[in-house]
């Protein structure tokens, strides 16, 4: 029985991971190179991703805190509203965003008047990344903050601390592993977002769009160097956090 179970587990793991090794074996590494456009895509993705992550942390943390601490009908509605963009197909979300933030829409027009174009610009790229990753971050950070025992926060209140100080001295340090995992998830979503970016911010091209363009123009083996950079940028943070959380649990 143990042999059958072990074989089955190995089979599923192999199914999941063996294709990933084609990164080392399947590419035309001798003739492949990173072009200037590829480099610009890397810079766009990393810069836009970092800006988006800062906005996501700043805007998502208070929302996650409120959702974790208020058990009211209004907070349930709030959580449902967060889930809608998360569960929506990204291409559909991209179309809705361009209809809202595009130059012909009132919101896009208002931003354009103050010099901020919300389509095909760095601002649009950041906006797309925020829409892709903010809901994931809020839901994961809310779960992490919800794990902090209410009694501990109550004690801090009776020790003369303001809500802001309690958050930074108690809630955030106690939830730091979960919040870090939420940030890692948000990073992966922001880095890998394709559907929204394709519609809202085709230019400047980030790594996913550039990869798609390269695949169309040069074929699969030629895009492996950029693919490697893409994976290196997207994967180490969540992998490291995942292993760290597992070690802490053991």
């Amino acid at each position, binding site marked *: 029985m143990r042999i059958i179970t072990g074989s089955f587990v190995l089979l599923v793991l192999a199914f999941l991971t063996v294709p990933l090794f084609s990164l080392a074996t399947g590419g035309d590494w001798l003739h492949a190179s990173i072009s200037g456009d590829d480099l610009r895509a890397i810079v766009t993705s990393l810069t836009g991703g970092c800006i988006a992550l800062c906005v996501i942390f700043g805007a998502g943390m208070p929302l996650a805190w409120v959702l974790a601490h208020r058990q009211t009908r209004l907070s349930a509605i709030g959580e449902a509203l967060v889930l809608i963009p998360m569960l929506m197909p990204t291409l559909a979300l991209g179309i809705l965003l361009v209809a809202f933030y595009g130059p012909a829409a009132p919101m896009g027009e208002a931003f354009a008047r103050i010099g901020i174009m919300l389509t095909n610009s760095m601002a649009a790229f950041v906006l797309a990344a925020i829409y892709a990753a903010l809901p994931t971050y809020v839901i994961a950070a809310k779960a992490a903050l919800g794990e902090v025992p209410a009694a501990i926060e109550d*004690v*801090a209140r*009776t*020790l003369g601390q303001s809500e802001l100080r309690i958050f930074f001295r108690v809630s955030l340090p*106690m939830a730091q592993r979960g919040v870090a995992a939420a940030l890692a998830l948000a990073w992966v979503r922001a880095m890998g977002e394709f559907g929204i970016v394709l519609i809202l911010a085709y230019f400047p091209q980030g790594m996913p769009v550039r990869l798609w363009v390269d695949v169309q123009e040069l074929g699969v083996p030629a895009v492996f160097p950029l693919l490697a950079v893409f994976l290196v940028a997207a994967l180490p943070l969540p992998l490291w956090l995942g292993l760290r959380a597992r070690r802490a649990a053991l």
Partner: protein
Amino acid sequence: MAFFIRYRLSAPIQLDAEFEIRGFTALLGRSGSGKTSLLKALAGLLPASGTPWGGLPARARPIGYLPQGSALFPHLTVLENAAFALAGPSRLGQAQNLLDDLGVGHLAARKGAKISGGEAQRVALARALARGPELLLLDEPSAALDAATRDQVFAQLVEAIGARNLPALAATHDPAIASLADWLVLLDEGKIIQQGTPRELFNHPATIGAARLVGYQNIWEENGKFCCIRAEDIEVVDSGREASICSVREQGADLRLICTTPEQMIVLIPNGEKSGFAVGQKIQLHLPADKIRILKAR
């Protein structure tokens, strides 16, 4: 220093409480009777109206709050826990002095999550005392203690608080813990039903609810009056009130009988032998008159 408390809550439980706090006061009530809610309301953690401190936010109230299980900050050391409410360059020194006074100074470098229940309680006390509170609130202070050392550790806690001449209100469902207090307040069905010294209340409960709270297992109606007696005060004799045994069970070194007279009576026989009793057997019970309490009200 004594406090007169008058608080009214409507959620999560409807409660209207008026009572005094004198020295170490125990608030005795059944589980779910609203003891924790009342403590939280006093601490400003639940919306309520009343005096003192009504309307003040939790952080502005001069109270020290020790929730069930002490709730130390697990990411901080014991010393950082004790210094949590303090500010200024001497905060760690002050916190260390408090820990030393309570006999847990040697734990200063340990993490809050890695000490025993009794130690955690002392650290939580040091953390609460650091703010110089006027009143301490303790929620089920014996709950996180080992059964073997519970009474001793709790008595030390009461002594440590008493040495500071600081009034305290401890919520508990355990009559044995409540009996160690200076003043006892009984909470039942959303209101305070009796208060006094533990000796007064244990000897003279006023109502059925009070009698049950202070550990009277046998309550019955006789000639229009409600009476009660403790299980250990009933004697099995050759001639007395006839009873039929419904259940025989060993309770530690003692024997516990449930009988009908026809009222149900629980009898605790010290060092009783199970072999001498059987279900269905008729026995005679003696209820000493000086041990029977007449309750003033239902």
